[in-house]
């Protein structure tokens, strides 16, 4: 458009330079041969690939766990009009393309060996060490998701303990956080997060096996170079640490081992790159030791539980314990050998141990192993945005913990929960059908303050037909999400997340075509509600900023972990006001049990675990606002277990 122009030369005309082929390009013999080669190459590549892929498609890769579920969901939801069906077709074509597999078997090793190029999901480290890219990162910075997951594990541990089972968690250190010298300098895998995660688990009362100290003494490689799993050395040491923990600190001795076999790393590279075995000849060979026990008759892993009698130690693990072929890995072989007893391996090839735990609880048919070893890959705690997001599946498989009682809702004598807000739709009756239906029960915001440490449990009863429903318990941060499946008439889920909650929600989402004959919604607790000790309220007196009221507690035993203070707070007006509760103890000391903002008419359930061992004598309420006409009521609620 910037061309020099006059009126006449600016007349629009097709004056574009076009691709005009000329016979001159095939004039000579060499040109004709070149043309045959070029056209032949193109047609052979196009038609040859098409023929091979259509006539001899490859088997698509097998997916596990959540990846398999996601794929199924995606396929089920694919539609013609929005193009998602076409995308699925392309994905399928990609997965089953034999030419793609053959081509990549040559191309990927070439790229790796010449340019250290690896697929986007990987990072090439030093000395041929490969790392998973998604495990190199830390999912969050404030630690909330990690702490929520840790709290849920603590509840699981406590729940199992009350059922007579010991839960031993083995947090698997990330390869990225262990082989730090092989991590490229431009990446930071934040190895300190693994240490923090273990510390958080310990602090929450979860019994863990820390393999880091025993690994630190090993001069041998602990992780395979081309794979995110352990070498036999790493697995053996992890098994020794686990067996020692199971034996309460007494280290078992090693049975005789044959470690003479050596294996090539090339197949691991091929597997990590997702290549055919054909590629192994082109990939770095390397090698590592393979171990096996020499003596028969020592403890062995078993894949099936005994028909009756007590269950052996259950190993709920991942691909660190069972590979894609369904075979036990050296970790579980070594663990059973070291313990000298069978280990029931419910591990699944994949990355989440939840499937394995659920599988074991189901196959136990009412029996639960006396010891469950839970293998927890470190990146599940550190690198994913929602660690153990599906742990509700485990809660749903467990029998109720003993000692749960109903916490009454609405007006009743003693400490009760406030009634759900008006308009709550989670009420007895028939729901769902033709449309997507959302049912909700909500205890008013700012009117109820409750602990998220499994002091409370939600129980839902009803009959579901036509498909699954999604249940969400509690509110931010990180409400617990569960699948309600037909055939399950009772759901019991703990309220466990982080800190205290102010908006207690229960959602049930019924997809189109799913119906629910809902029977009841109850809140259960292991607090001794019936035996609650009521405080005697003194007269409220005005202060320069509001008022103060003393509530005397009857003489009682020292507080225990899990005890709570239940309060009905009533103040004039409708606006939320600040308040604080100071505990006075028999030894003359005081401590603040809680301070913050609460509704003018609020129910508070305040955990007193921080004051375990001390004997409270009174609670002093300080609040802004006008003097209340009605005295505050408070109860000391003891944990029933």
């Amino acid at each position, binding site marked *: 458009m910037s061309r020099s122009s006059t009126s006449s030369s*600016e007349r629009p005309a097709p004056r574009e*330079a076009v*691709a005009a082929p000329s016979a001159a390009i*095939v004039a000579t013999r060499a040109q004709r041969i070149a043309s045959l080669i070029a056209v032949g190459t193109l047609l052979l590549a196009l038609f040859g690939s098409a023929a091979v892929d259509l006539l001899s498609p490859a088997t698509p890769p097998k997916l596990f766990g959540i990846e398999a579920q996601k794929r199924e969901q995606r396929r089920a939801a694919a539609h013609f009009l929005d193009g998602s069906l076409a995308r699925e077709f392309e994905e399928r074509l990609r997965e089953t393309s034999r030419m793609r597999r053959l081509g990549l078997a040559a191309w990927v090793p070439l790229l790796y060996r010449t340019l250290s190029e690896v697929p986007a999901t990987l990072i090439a480290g030093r000395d041929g060490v490969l790392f998973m890219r998604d495990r190199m990162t830390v999912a969050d910075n404030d630690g909330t998701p990690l702490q929520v997951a840790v709290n849920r594990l603590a509840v699981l541990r406590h729940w199992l303990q009350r059922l007579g089972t010991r839960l031993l968690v083995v947090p698997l250190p990330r390869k990225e956080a262990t082989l730090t010298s092989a991590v490229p300098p431009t990446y930071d895998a934040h190895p300190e997060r693994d240490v923090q995660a273990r510390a958080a688990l310990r602090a929450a009362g979860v019994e863990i096996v820390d393999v880091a100290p025993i690994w630190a003494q090993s001069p041998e490689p602990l992780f395979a170079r081309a794979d995110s799993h352990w070498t036999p050395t790493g697995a053996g040491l992890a098994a020794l640490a686990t067996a020692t923990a199971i034996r309460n600190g007494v280290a078992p001795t090693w049975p005789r081992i044959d470690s003479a076999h050596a294996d090539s790393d090339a197949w691991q590279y091929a597997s990590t790159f997702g290549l055919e075995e054909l590629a192994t000849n082109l990939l770095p060979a390397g090698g590592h030791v393979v171990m096996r026990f020499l003596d028969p008759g020592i403890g062995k892993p078993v894949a099936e539980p005994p028909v009756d009698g007590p269950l052996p130690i259950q190993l709920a693990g991942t691909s660190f314990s069972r590979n894609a072929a369904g075979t036990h890995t050296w970790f579980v072989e070594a663990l059973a050998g070291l313990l000298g007893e069978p280990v029931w391996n419910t591990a699944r090839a994949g990355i989440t141990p939840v499937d394995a735990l659920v599988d074991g609880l189901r196959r136990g048919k009412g029996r639960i192993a006396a010891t469950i070893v839970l293998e927890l890959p470190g990146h599940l705690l550190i690198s994913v945005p929602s660690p153990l997001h599906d742990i509700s599946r485990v809660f749903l498989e467990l029998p109720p913990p003993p000692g749960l009682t109903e916490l009454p809702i609405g007006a009743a004598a003693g400490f009760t929960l406030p009634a759900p807000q008006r308009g709550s739709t989670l009420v007895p009756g028939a729901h769902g059908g033709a449309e997507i239906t959302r049912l909700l029960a909500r205890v008013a915001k700012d009117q109820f303050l409750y602990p998220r440490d499994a002091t409370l449990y939600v129980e839902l009863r009803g009959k579901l037909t036509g498909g699954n429903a999604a249940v969400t318990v509690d509110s931010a941060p990180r409400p617990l999400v569960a699948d309600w499946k037909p055939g399950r008439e009772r759901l019991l889920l703990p309220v466990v997340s982080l800190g205290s909650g102010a908006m207690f929600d229960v959602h049930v989402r019924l997809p189109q075509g799913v119906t629910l004959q809902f029977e009841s919604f109850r809140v259960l607790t292991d607090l001794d509600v019936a035996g609650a000790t009521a405080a005697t309220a003194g007269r409220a007196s005005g202060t320069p900023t509001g008022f103060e009221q003393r509530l005397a507690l009857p003489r009682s035993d020292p507080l225990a972990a899990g005890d709570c203070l239940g309060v009905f707070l009533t103040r004039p007006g409708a606006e939320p006001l600040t308040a604080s509760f100071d505990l006075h103890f028999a030894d003359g000391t005081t401590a603040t049990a809680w301070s913050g903002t609460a509704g003018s008419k609020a129910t508070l359930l305040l955990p007193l675990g921080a004051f375990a061992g001390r004997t409270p004598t009174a609670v002093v309420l300080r609040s802004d606002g006008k003097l209340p006409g009605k005295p505050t009521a408070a109860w000391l609620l003891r944990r029933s277990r």
Partner: protein
Amino acid sequence: MVFSSAVFLYLFLPAFLLAYALSPRALKALTISAFSFVFYGWWRPDFVLLMLASSVIDYWLGGRIARQRAAGTGNGRRELVLSMVANLGLLGYFKYANFGVDTARTLLQACGFAGDFGWTAVVLPVGISFYTFQTMSYTIDLYRGEVRPASSFIDFLCYVSMFPQLVAGPIVRYAVVEHELRTREHTWYGFYQGVLFLQTGIAKKVLLADTISGIADRAFAVPDAQGLGLLDAWLGITAYAFQIYFDFSGYSDMAIGLGLMMGFKFPFNFDSPYHSQSITEFWRRWHMSLSNWLRDYLYIALGGNRKGPVRTYVNLALTMLLGGLWHGAAWNFVAWGGYQGFWLVIERLAGKRPWYGVAPTAVRVAITFVLALFGWVLFRATGLGHAIQYAGAMLGLGPAGAPTNVAALTTPLAWTGLLAAAAITWTLPSSQRLAARAHPLWVLLLQPCFLAALLHLHYQDNVPFLYFQF
């Protein structure tokens, strides 16, 4: 469907070539149209209806224009206006409605109003910018008496929907293919040259554009270019300059090649643009089919250079602003158009010479390239603010922040791609010149590159062409 996908290369294209070869001459246009509709509707079948509607309207209006002119009963002005309204209306709604609503909302909110329209965002149909320009060229050229009407609706449909250039150009004016729609030659050498273009295009797209795309993506992913180092900023934008060139010119080569394989001669779209010694020359070499379209249907329609120097500058600037807006409904594209228009006006003021015209050739090429790079910042940034921050980082004025490591994270493959792209850009002639000569040595060297591109295509995830978004 994209050219660089398995479904296109190993299902669609073999099936099409087979069907096209077996079709009798009279049905070849129908075969092209049928396959083109499958190609276009692959990801959004409903958008096929939109293209069909656009085709029906313009074919009908074009026919009326031609009949009026032939019968001497009118000049078809009303039909032309209707065609413009229909095409620009479609383009305006699907491409610019979201932009208009967002802008209005921002203005209202700045004035203290709620500005909430309850607007549901419109999805942009792929290629609408290209095919509406093509159909408009048909009715305009008929109105101007420069072409004859399409002999049948199938021929016209074939012109509008022809899959090689449907979604990302080159913009083929009806006048260019008018003759070939009626009768065209299918020769071995034409097919062979088409193969060479196709192979070159795939190699350019996959081996060059895609391998270096990560560098630019990483540099532009730094939020507001905070802490983006001087070298990283230059590395990122240089990589983008090569990425967009090899991506878009690769696509154009493939389109031209596929056209030749069917006997069509499409216009060239690129002619070594980074060899340019001025921005004026750059626009003669970059996206030539769009430049020519804008020149012939907008710049000249506005008066071109026929109404004095001031109007010439205004027309030039306005054309480039609208050209920028054609690329995307966002202010940074308008600013990019304005930036290009600014340099064109400056050069026009200096007698069509750049202000650095006295410098040696290599320096002129280098300065033009750097000016183009600053333009690409506007083009690639997520918004005007981002573009300003990024340009600031290129000038060493970036705000302090966590240091980025774009260069450190660049893989050997990406470095290889970048260096190869630079070497090819400045040492080899353009692909049309190479394909026109078809030197046997070059043809033989091209084959492993083509096969490597096919292999690498399997290796990488689907990477769409950049110009699909326009």
